């Protein structure tokens, strides 16, 4: 059980994800769309319940991400990369909020 809980994955530029190795996560460096897609599929197939992905990597493989949006077994969580956040994670959260409640309450321009 403990093993299962500890299992985490991280995908992205190798500089950004090295730190995850320290906490026992499986870190897969990926910098091209194909690499990112394959890394996500590999981790998901190995039964990794939580996969952290850097925002820049997530932007490269929107389709692979969308596949895991609907599955219960795997959660793909975008994190800021080495250059900081480019707004991808926030945008995803905002999309989810709009879908859930039907209004864009996070838009600060309102």
């Amino acid at each position: 059980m403990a093993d299962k809980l500890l299992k985490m994955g991280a995908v992205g530029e190798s500089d950004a994800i090295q730190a995850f190795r320290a906490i026992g996560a499986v870190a897969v460096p990926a910098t091209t769309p194909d690499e990112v897609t394959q890394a996500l599929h590999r981790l998901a197939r190995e039964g990794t319940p939580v996969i952290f992905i850097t925002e820049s990597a997530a932007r490269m493989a929107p389709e692979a991400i969308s596949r895991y949006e609907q599955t219960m077994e795997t959660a793909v969580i975008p994190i800021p990369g080495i250059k900081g956040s480019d707004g991808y994670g926030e945008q995803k959260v905002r999309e989810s909020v709009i879908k859930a409640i039907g209004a864009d309450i996070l838009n600060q321009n309102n």
Partner: protein
Amino acid sequence: MAQGKIVKVAGSLIVAEGMSSARMFDVVRVSRHRLIGEILELRGDRASIQVYEETSGLGPGEPVESTGAPLSLELGPGLIESIFDGIQRPLVDIRKKAGDRITRGIELPSLNREKEWDFVPVVKPGDKVASGDVIGSVQETPVVLHKIMVPYGIEGVVESIEQGSFKIEDTIAVVKGEDGQVHHLSMLQRWPVRRGRPYKEKLSPQMPMVTGQRVIDTLFPIASGGVAAIPGPFGSGKTVVQHQLAKWADADIIVYVGCGERGNEMTDVLMEFPQLHDPKTGETLMKRTVLIANTSDMPVAAREASIYTGITIAEYFRDMGYRVAIMADSTSRWAEALREMSGRLEEMPGEEGYPAYLSSRIAEFYERAGQVVCLGSDGRQGAISAIGAVSPPGGDISEPVSQATLRIVKVFWGLSAQLAYRRHFPAIDWLLSYSLYTDNLSEWFTDHVSPEWEQLRQRTMQILQEESELEEIVRLVGMDALSWKDRLTMEVARSIREDYLHQNAFDEVDTYTSLTKQYRMLRLILDYADKGQTALDAGVNLSDVISMKVRERIGRAKYIPEDSLKYFDEIEDELAFETNELINRGGL
């Protein structure tokens, strides 16, 4: 013969008195114009008569004369390729004699009396024959061998029979009954339209009537000897479906009854059928077709008779051992004619003003269809498949005619205005329609098409049903909420709808699809579903699976001619190859 006089005229209904010796359903001649009518009601010596022709100018006091016989049809060589009105008057001959409009009281024999037919006997003097036995035949058209049968009620020993050219009224055989009575048989028989022609035994249909229409043959097949209804709102393509069935249905004889619909629809049939060739015989479709026309501007009373006229002719050919298909377009107009007459008769109206006996009349018509063992000693089988269009006002099938029809028919091809609006033709709604013959017929399909057929059929239905459930979800939360598996299902369902169920009646190749081709097409689409799923499981992106190049070829598979089915192997190979390539590239 009873001779009475008119006391009341109400549209096409007249009441005459002095008719005490007449009987129900006797045909009468009304007034000095000698209009044809039929007795619908007798009260003392008063008879209510429906007149099959325009009654303007008639008044009380004019004579009514009974012919002493019920409305009967002339059955014999000359029926095929003819076009009759509702009471079997030959429209072509009438046009020659009276011009474009039928003049009142015109009297012409239904079948050509002058034409000579080459009669070839199959029995010889001394043979014993019973009712329904074939005594000889006439090659009526290149595809129809018209069998001459012993009329019902006659039985005995053939005294003489001759070969040669005869007119239909000439004696071709003499049969001496056991009671010593001598019958002179000609090629012409008469039969009252309201009575079903007798048969030996009715059988349960076990074989489909292949129509070449994919949605019908695959999902909602009709049995040979089955009954089907096509209800649908205005503009949804009832007539086109009927025409398609008349053109391509796997039947020996087609009887097409145009009943209260537009004249140009009959014109279409008359113009098109002589141009189209039957794939099996190579002859034009007209060579196996009988047309009955009572278009919307023709007298309404004859509309009521037209359906019976059609089915009686169908029964006559069935008795020869043929598979006959009768299309009635539309039974709603016929029911409206019943309603009009019932109103004039001052009967108590039932639902929506239709007579209380509406459903029994509709049942009477459809029950005359079926697969039967014909009369006669050779045990031949014949079948009538009846297909009636129903035009419910506003497309609402809760109205009485649709409901009464649905109680009887076993196949329901519900046309949907929505599909027609989306230009999906034939607009047969797969979620609404049903066929109760599928269980009976699955064995035939397994033996004659493929053991996989039933399984493919069920899977197709299942995917289409899943699609409608998924559509609900998509409507609520959007396409993104679906898993890839479901999105692939939606994509396969779309392929089934657009590449398989959609069929262009006006495309030379697409208009007819053989069962083998249907099987190959369906297998191809479901193969794509399986291979697509395998690819997704292997990690290939959905967009790559959806945009596979081979899909264009799958979509165009319907245009592969019947004689080039080998292309299906090619497409299958390409599908397998492309899937493997995707998996190798995008998978893990």
